[in-house]
């Protein structure tokens, strides 16, 4: 194909705002619904890790894909049980405020009341989700300026 002889388009004919939309500056947020499902999976895995240490009462159900096991939150006597590591972390006011919305969204996904969702569980599960997404985590850090390091 040869180039057209003569003038091309008028570069300023159309409104440039149309061709160059301002990207919306939204605070990066985890897509809650989808990720909480992943979080559940992580929790299940964590739960199975714990119950692995308990005697297996059902060696005769080999056809069954999952062993019957006591879920983590039922098996523990307190929310801090088996949580011997304390990771203290400091957050911005903005992040702290977003936690409430996040908590409601996760509770909705679980179809439970928000007050039945323990913050320690929520935070650990969210952290496990983040560990499965190092690239997205890096993106947020880039937004904070790590790209210039």
């Amino acid at each position, binding site marked *: *194909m*040869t*180039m*057209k*002889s*003569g*003038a*091309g*388009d*008028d*570069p*300023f004919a159309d409104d*440039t705002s149309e*061709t*160059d939309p301002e*990207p*919306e*500056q*939204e605070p*990066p947020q985890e897509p809650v619904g989808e990720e909480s499902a992943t979080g559940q999976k992580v929790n299940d895995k964590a739960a199975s890790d714990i119950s692995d240490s308990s005697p297996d009462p059902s060696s005769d159900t080999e056809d069954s894909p999952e062993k019957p096991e006591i879920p983590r939150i039922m098996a523990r006597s307190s929310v801090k049980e088996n949580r011997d590591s304390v990771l203290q972390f400091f957050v911005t006011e903005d992040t702290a405020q977003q936690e409430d919305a996040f908590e409601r969204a996760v509770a909705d996904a679980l179809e439970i009341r928000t007050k039945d969702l323990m913050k320690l569980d929520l935070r650990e599960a969210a952290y496990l989700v983040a560990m499965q997404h190092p690239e997205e985590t890096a*993106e947020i850090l*880039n*937004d904070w300026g790590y*790209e210039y390091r």
Partner: protein
Amino acid sequence: MLTYTTYSEAGGVGKTTLAANLAVAHADNGHKVLIIDMDQQDGSLSHLLGVDADRHDPDADTIVHHMIDRPRGDFDDLIKTSEGVDIIPSHDALESLGDWLDKAADFEEAAAGEDYEYPRFEQLRRVLADNDVPNQYDVIIVDPPATAGPHLYNGIDATRSLVIPMELSGKGKQSIQGLESVVDGLEDSLEIAVGVLAVIPNGTKRTTDQETYRKEVEGLGYEVPVILADRTSLMEGCWTQQCSAFKYVEEHRDRKRDYELETLEQIRSLAAQLEAEANLVDEEEEVTAA
């Protein structure tokens, strides 16, 4: 409005001197002209017209800063003037244009979400539109480096039309074919139509060659309004004195040479033809008509 990018894949074909001389001719015809010098090399149009004082100043505001939306000052303060022509000069930062656009793209795309693609080759046009350049100028000329890349792509997107100086040789013809593939790719990816206003055979030494060359280029389907003869002495004088050919002949030649005056007349005629193509009305005619 007349907008074009002067482009040649091969260097040393008088691209920059042609851009500067056409700009001065447009200004002489009463038009308000803005040149954007996108060539990061030292011997660029900014040097030719003597407006490159800040080229190596790392703290200067530059067109690149505006293109990535991190301006250090007002757009109007970027503009220098020489021989009646406004110029946004070249700067060392142009060497980093590609990297900076990539960084801006990473940033904007991360902030906006997955489906957003940062238009990295539409940033020059955005800067010009945002700063009311189309209303303030009659002619916009972009002079990019002689290599394909973000400088050229931004220039083509901002002007949509090309003026192509070429050496009349096998190399010149190849350069046109190379440009065709670049333009095809840009037209597809940016969804624009690019036109070739003129191909300007430049530096011919023998008049007997000229008609052969003209036919060859016209055979490729492009207008050849003028063929410029080899004027090495005149062009070198322009670079030494840092001025246009018009000013050089006027101020630095003690004796006018007919063949040089003829070349100046050809450039004026070319400028007028390009203006006519864009339906620009001469200031004088406008006044008469009113």
